[in-house]
């Protein structure tokens, strides 16, 4: 048997052993453990603001940590910074490439980033008298699907080249490259303690990584199609994923396995985005069918719907104080709901 064949057999055997190890600790599931938990109440939210200004499909949005400002990215080739309270546009950043897929707000509020089919992550300083490009991070060989700042000096990216990367914003170089996915990486989420992050990819897997040593610590399987959205729950002990297979799932990090699936026979649209309320009890998931469904994360039931967009909901976001949820759509509008 050739060495390659031997290694493939070894890989299969290891996967089988990992599954067995998971089964060995599976002595209850969420349905049983949460049987005594009162269901979350039906959630009926109103649109408080509709942010109009983009001229084409919105692909991404991200809240500032001040709970008031937010950045959105559109195919019209602009990043817009909004004051969500007044609905006014505070800044407009013209993009070199209009094929943008992601945007991010630095925790400090000083920087924003964008990226897309240009394979680059561009970082802008909002605090200079005129908004300046401070870095063009250029090393990925595929589209930039997601970016998240750790600070003003470090940013994480995920790419269609199947890798994720941690960049040093002072040098503009990759510090660490995260290699393990075999499909385009579509999304990432940083853990609350910022020591790890999770990525979701077109190989239908979610992976947990150590930010510093670059190693893939855990792999979560179960989805049967691309994972488009991913988020840590606020405690950092579980993640929620959203997929083209029309379901969302919760994976328990400590038990290393799926514990509940959020699905409905009537739902046959892919999940594009998701965000959690501050307790993690509610999941706001955006779908291809123009709606955002609200799930009770512990009971697995749908407790509300946000209807109002005239096209696919492409992004959702809840600010740190949890006071509202924002949805962004291919209909070119952003809506604030609570």
């Amino acid at each position, binding site marked *: 048997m050739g060495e390659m064949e031997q*290694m*493939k057999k070894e*890989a299969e055997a*290891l996967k089988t052993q*990992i599954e067995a*190890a*998971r089964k*060995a*600790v599976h*002595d*209850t599931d*969420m349905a049983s*453990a*949460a049987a005594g938990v009162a269901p979350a109440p039906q*959630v009926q939210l109103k649109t*408080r*603001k509709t942010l109009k200004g983009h001229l084409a499909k919105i*692909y991404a949005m991200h809240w500032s940590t001040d709970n008031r400002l937010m950045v959105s990215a559109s195919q019209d080739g602009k990043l817009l910074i909004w004051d969500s*309270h007044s609905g006014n546009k505070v800044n407009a950043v013209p993009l070199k490439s209009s*094929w943008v897929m992601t945007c991010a707000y630095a925790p400090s509020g000083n920087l924003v980033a964008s990226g*897309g*089919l240009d394979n680059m992550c561009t970082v802008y300083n909002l605090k200079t008298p005129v908004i300046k490009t401070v870095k063009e991070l250029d090393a990925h*060989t*595929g*589209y930039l699907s997601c970016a998240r700042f750790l600070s003003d000096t470090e940013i994480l990216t995920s790419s*269609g*080249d*199947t890798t994720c990367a941690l960049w040093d914003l002072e040098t503009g170089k990759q510090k660490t490259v995260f290699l393990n996915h*075999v*499909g*385009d990486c*579509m999304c990432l989420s940083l853990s609350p303690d910022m020591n790890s992050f999770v990525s979701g990819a*077109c190989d239908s897997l979610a992976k947990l990584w150590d930010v510093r040593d670059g190693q*893939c*610590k855990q792999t979560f399987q179960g989805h049967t*199609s*691309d994972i*488009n959205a991913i988020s840590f*729950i606020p*405690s950092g*002990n579980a993640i929620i994923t959203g997929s*083209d297979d029309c379901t969302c799932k919760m994976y*328990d990090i*400590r038990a290393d*396995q799926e514990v509940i699936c959020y699905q409905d026979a009537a739902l046959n649209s892919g999940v*594009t985005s998701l965000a959690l*309320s*501050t*307790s*993690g*009890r*509610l999941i706001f998931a955006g779908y*291809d069918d123009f709606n955002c469904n609200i799930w009770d*994360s*512990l009971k697995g039931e749908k407790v509300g719907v946000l209807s109002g967009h005239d096209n*696919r909901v492409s992004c959702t976001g809840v600010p740190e104080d*949890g*006071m509202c949820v924002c949805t962004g759509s291919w209909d070119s509008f952003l809506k*604030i709901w*609570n």
Partner: protein
Amino acid sequence: MLHNLKHSYSGYLLEDFKQSFHFTSKLLNSDLITMDELDETQLKNHVDSLKQQLKFNREKTSVSIPELIKWTEEKMNEDPFLNPDILKDNPWVESSKCVIT
């Protein structure tokens, strides 16, 4: 496992952009990389990674899930979507007092 781009969200995004952008990434129009396509080094790394992942010390779900539930339930009181008192001060709803400036 074939990855049909056209029926996925990423496929829609890419079809959308494709009209005037020339792709350089070899992965965009190809199927998922399978183990067959990994070279020797990649395969070795894949096996090494699996060995490390196997070592992970897995907690019993009867311990981890109830703790997860407890954490969530404790935070629900501070969750604006679940505690209506918090949203009495709603930044997006004008209060009854009008201030003319």
